[in-house]
């Protein structure tokens, strides 16, 4: 995983914290929470695109984590363990909400429908970089299935075979859904930029 693993000293102190949390010390729980809260909450927020749901899911994930911290034996990195747990909590939630496997297992028709082309006016690339807020806005618009795969792969750094396993779909599906998600994001970003160019920066339109 790209993020989460630190220098040996950090790992050492984290394993000490885990040992203390296993003894029920509040301070250790608080410190572990503090280290991981942003990453956990951000993942939940991006997967659900809903702050209230993200808060509930983060709470659920931390509760599950702390309730079974006594079973953690250190075979895998703590952050990996936590991360899997969060992803599971979120996916369970999405399934309950009716985000079915269907959206992932639909016939792969990415090859059959090429991108609609309007040569000429649209031959301009996106301007500059894409900041966090803009990205948040357009990710919100993705259908949940696409969003989950996009977040897991492009944001969280999961491999397609891992995604296929946790999302219960094929590697090919994961790849094609990811590609579609990126194309949809591009469309949304270009639309936003056009609107910005037309109306000027927000707040100046009237």
């Amino acid at each position: 995983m790209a993020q989460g693993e630190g220098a040996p000293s950090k790992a050492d102190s984290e394993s000490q914290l885990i040992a203390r949390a296993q003894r029920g010390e509040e301070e250790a729980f608080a410190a572990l929470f503090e280290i991981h809260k942003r990453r956990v909450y951000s993942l939940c927020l991006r997967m659900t695109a809903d702050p209230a749901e993200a808060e509930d899911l983060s709470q659920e994930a931390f509760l599950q984590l702390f309730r079974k911290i006594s079973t953690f034996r250190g075979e895998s990195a703590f952050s990996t363990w936590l991360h899997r747990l969060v992803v599971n909590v979120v996916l369970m939630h999405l399934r309950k909400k009716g985000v079915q496997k269907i959206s992932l297992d639909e016939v792969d028709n990415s090859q059959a429908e090429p991108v609609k082309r309007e040569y000429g006016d649209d031959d301009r690339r996106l301007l500059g970089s894409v900041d966090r807020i803009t990205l948040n806005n357009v990710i919100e618009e993705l259908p949940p299935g696409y969003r989950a795969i996009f977040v897991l792969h492009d944001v969280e750094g999961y491999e397609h075979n891992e995604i296929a396993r946790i999302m219960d779909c094929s590697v090919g599906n994961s790849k094609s859904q990811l590609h579609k998600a990126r194309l949809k994001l591009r469309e949304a970003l270009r639309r936003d930029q056009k609107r910005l160019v037309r109306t000027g920066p927000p707040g100046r339109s009237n």
Partner: protein
Amino acid sequence: MKDGETVEQSRTRKQDACADFERELAAYLEGEERQSVLSHAESCEYCRCMLADLELIRSSSAEYGFEEPPARLWTNVRATLVAEGVIRQPASFWRRWLPVGGRGLLRSPIPLAAAATLAIAFVIFLKAALPFFRSRPASSSAAGIQPAAVQLASASSPAEGSASVQRTIKALEQEYYANAQSMQPSLQVTYQKSLQSLDNEIQECRVFSQKQPDNALVQQYLSNAYADKAELLQSALEYNLR
């Protein structure tokens, strides 16, 4: 356009090449070798834009920053862990002030010594303030309007200490709200959020303590939360007077 080719034929040829590009694009972005993708992008403006955009989206996503969860997240997690007995050793009053992993209120990494000084100053303040507040006639009526849950809580804990802390808080709170208007708006928002989060914490502790009046841990949390609140109000007032 190639020699002897109609406009229509040229467009079709272009579309075919672009379609080939699109078919190979995903694999190329997955890191597979696709020379045709690069060579087509060189000759086709449209596809070059698409490639550049998708690479930009990929790199921006990998550098996506983190969002800060609301402060009440820990309050809620902690309250549940205490109720379930997962947290068996609560942090002492002192330790909760030191920035070991932080508890939200002292978010800036202030040096340990400064934190300790702050905590000590607070206790000195409390000791100095209590007789003063107690001697004021208003304090008895303030104590009289305490919600039943609080009285229950203070009755089962070192009662006198808890009740006087609550009177102190009440007085501080009145002073805070009297002065809040003159506070810098962003600062006011920050304090207001922290106060809200502490009030939620206190409320939860009260509920738990009603359910389990004999749970010493809950009593300890409750008195810690009151102490936190008094300290927060005090720091707001001090900040405002500067």
